[in-house]
């Protein structure tokens, strides 16, 4: 029938027009979501280590997490934290939060009275190829190479900020179950060559320098992550 022919013609014309529209150069795709997970270690029943002045590690890491979150948010980076208060969060739950966030970087924040400067630890798991089903306790194995690269970026930023840094590998249950590039950051007092404390953990200026250096490193990491 005539009206059917006209309808078909209109549909074909519309389709061609649509095709021509889609053939036009499309606008650049939005950049992939860049999420950072901040894991303030310990909390609740788990006080962690006892620092000088009676401060507990769980309180120190939470304060650092809050400060770092603010710095990253000001730079337009989306942040997911594993805890926002003095609450008990199991190691598996922390890794679950990080894995669900599909983060591009995960920092597990710790503090210790022993040692000197900043200690950066990547998982000691051997690198492995990604598989469809990863074992929970060794999920980090597929990201270890990226974690070491992230540790390198953090190391550069902290050295640039004038801090002493120790790089190492360790076995932390939380870290080993994360699928994102993950590094444990342990803050220790700054010491001089005579091993005397030159900047304690309770030094506000030291805390600010550490947080600023970590934020700068993550901004740089975002730039590297968005490079083709």
């Amino acid at each position, binding site marked *: 029938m005539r009206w059917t022919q006209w309808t078909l013609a209109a549909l074909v014309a519309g389709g061609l027009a649509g095709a021509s529209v889609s053939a036009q150069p499309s606008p650049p795709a939005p950049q992939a979501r860049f999420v950072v997970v901040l894991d303030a270690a*310990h909390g609740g029943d*788990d006080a*962690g*280590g*006892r620092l000088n002045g009676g401060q507990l*590690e769980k309180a120190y890491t939470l304060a650092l997490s809050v400060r770092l979150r603010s710095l990253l948010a000001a730079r337009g980076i989306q942040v997911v934290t594993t805890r926002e208060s003095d609450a008990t969060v199991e190691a598996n739950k922390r890794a679950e939060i990080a894995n669900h966030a599909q983060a591009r970087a995960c920092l597990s924040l*710790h503090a*210790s*009275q*022993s*040692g*000197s400067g900043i*200690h950066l*630890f990547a998982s*000691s*798991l*051997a690198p492995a190829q990604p598989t469809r089903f990863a*074992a929970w*306790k*060794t999920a980090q*194995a597929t990201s270890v190479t990226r974690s070491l690269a992230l540790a390198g970026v953090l190391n550069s930023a902290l050295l640039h900020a004038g801090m002493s840094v*120790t790089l*190492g*590998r*360790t*076995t*932390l*249950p939380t870290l*080993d179950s994360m699928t994102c590039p993950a590094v*444990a950051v*342990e803050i*220790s007092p700054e*010491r001089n060559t005579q*091993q005397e404390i030159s900047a304690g953990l309770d030094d506000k200026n030291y805390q600010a320098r550490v947080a600023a250096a970590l934020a700068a490193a993550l901004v740089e990491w975002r730039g590297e992550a968005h490079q083709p």
Partner: protein
Amino acid sequence: MIPRYQKFLFAILLVASLAMGVGLWQLRERAHQRMIAGENSAPTSAPEVAPAEQATLLVANDSDGSLLTQVHSLPLPADPGARARAVLGKLLDLYAAPDAAHAVPGGGSAVTQVFLLPAPEIGAGADAAVKPKSGGSSANPPAAPPQDAQETGPQLAVVNLTGGFAASHPSGIETETLTVLSICGTLHANLPRVTQVRFLVDGLERPTLAGHADLTRTYLTSDAAPSEGTHP
């Protein structure tokens, strides 16, 4: 009315029971006397002092997070398990010293036992934090290694630490990792067949040493690479 033969039978059984009771009592007394006689606490022979030998220790240093090789001379027993315990005791004595570069209280008495077992194959459940859960029995248990492998093959060392040592260990990723790695490296340096190490605290599995280092996994001694060596 009880038949006569049943009364007879009852009397015989009663006498037999009493006789056996008396006999057992006498046997028990004799055994007790023998046990007391055997518990003579007086020394019958002079204690043997093991000859001093060179022991290689991987000593941790908190200031730079390194493991330094040190050679010490100390009496070492011939038995490998006792030898391992003696070497670790010396290592922890160094950490308990007042001027230690890696200060950990406890000393040599913190190592209760060291058990040496044939090492399971890497990847067959021994490696990388994978541990069979209690109650989950394997359908195909691993076959026992042949006799040659038991005598010359790689070994798993199970180090049993005291609860006091774990409770007093400083908390921190670096300090705990250094303690664990220095123990692993020291064991391998003195007993080269030891390639894997597991830790117990008071005979039980413990999640972490002092809140950080994972004690539920099997450590490979190859992870504990020493830094520059020093010889005091």
